[in-house]
């Protein structure tokens, strides 16, 4: 009989320790998940993407899509991705009540290699612009500008001007680099400027 009692105690002890482990694991996971709200995480995974522009394939680099994702978690996201179903997305989100994050352009820049300019192999710029924006340009460090073509896009009833742009290899040199992305209104006045970080 004492042997049977000891076995039961042991089983209870094992169950207790395993349960403690599960709870501890859940607590650790919950704490570490503090970085991203759970509803945003679920929405990023489940809500559909709408293509608003594209970046064509060139010089051995694959084509990319520019996508907008209106999420049920109250965020609007802008993605640079191989396809609408790809989970390997690069970009970000702003709150739906402030889709441009207090600016006129919602921009995301992605690149491979670097951080020194000579090591960068593929640099892309994707974005959506506010209604006031009629032109988007890349300002180079030598003062010259590269014009970016805007494309009208409708996402869930809201109209956007979207763009996707791949920096030319010749524009990623030590002596001349992309300095900023600028937005111009209908009078030609600059109404937003966002640094690329490549120059100064």
């Amino acid at each position: 009989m004492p042997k049977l009692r000891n076995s039961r105690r042991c089983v209870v002890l094992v169950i207790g320790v395993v349960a403690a482990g599960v709870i501890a694991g859940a607590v650790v996971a919950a704490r570490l998940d503090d970085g991203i709200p759970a509803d945003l995480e679920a929405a990023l995974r489940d809500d559909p993407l709408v293509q608003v522009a594209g970046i064509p394939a060139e010089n051995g680099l694959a084509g990319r899509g520019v996508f907008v994702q209106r999420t049920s978690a109250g965020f609007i996201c802008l993605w640079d991705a191989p396809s609408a179903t790809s989970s390997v997305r690069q970009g970000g989100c702003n709150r739906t009540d402030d889709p441009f994050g207090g600016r006129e352009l919602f921009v995301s820049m992605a690149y491979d290699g670097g951080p020194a300019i000579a090591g960068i192999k593929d640099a892309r710029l994707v974005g959506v612009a506010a209604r006031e924006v009629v032109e988007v340009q890349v300002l180079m460090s030598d003062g010259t500008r590269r014009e970016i073509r805007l494309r009208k896009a409708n996402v869930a009833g809201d109209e956007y001007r979207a763009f996707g742009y791949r920096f030319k290899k010749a524009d990623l040199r030590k002596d001349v680099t992309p300095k900023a992305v600028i937005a111009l209104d209908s009078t030609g006045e600059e109404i937003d400027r966002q640094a690329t970080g490549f120059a100064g």
Partner: protein
Amino acid sequence: MKRLTLALLLSLVFCTSAWGAATTYAGYQYWPAGQGASTSFSPSWFRNTFYKTSNFDTTVTFIDNVSYSWHSTVRSSASYVQTHWLSSQTKKAHCRANTTGPSWAACTAY
């Protein structure tokens, strides 16, 4: 005693799996411009995110442990920024504030 050891090992597995799911490797109320943070090096990192409660200019990237080059870098002022790098190479997730961040923001890697 053997059972107790097994139970402790199982607990460790649960904790480790929870840890491996997501690691918030930096979280501050205030991010001075230039402030950066990184995970340890591991081949298992594949996603790197920066969640902010206000908009400021940030970068997320992966840095390999051979050439220390950056991979799948994303720079944006969006309130949430994300990148992926599906590579078996040993790497660390790295995030950085390019301008001052005035409120809570955190970097999480998976």
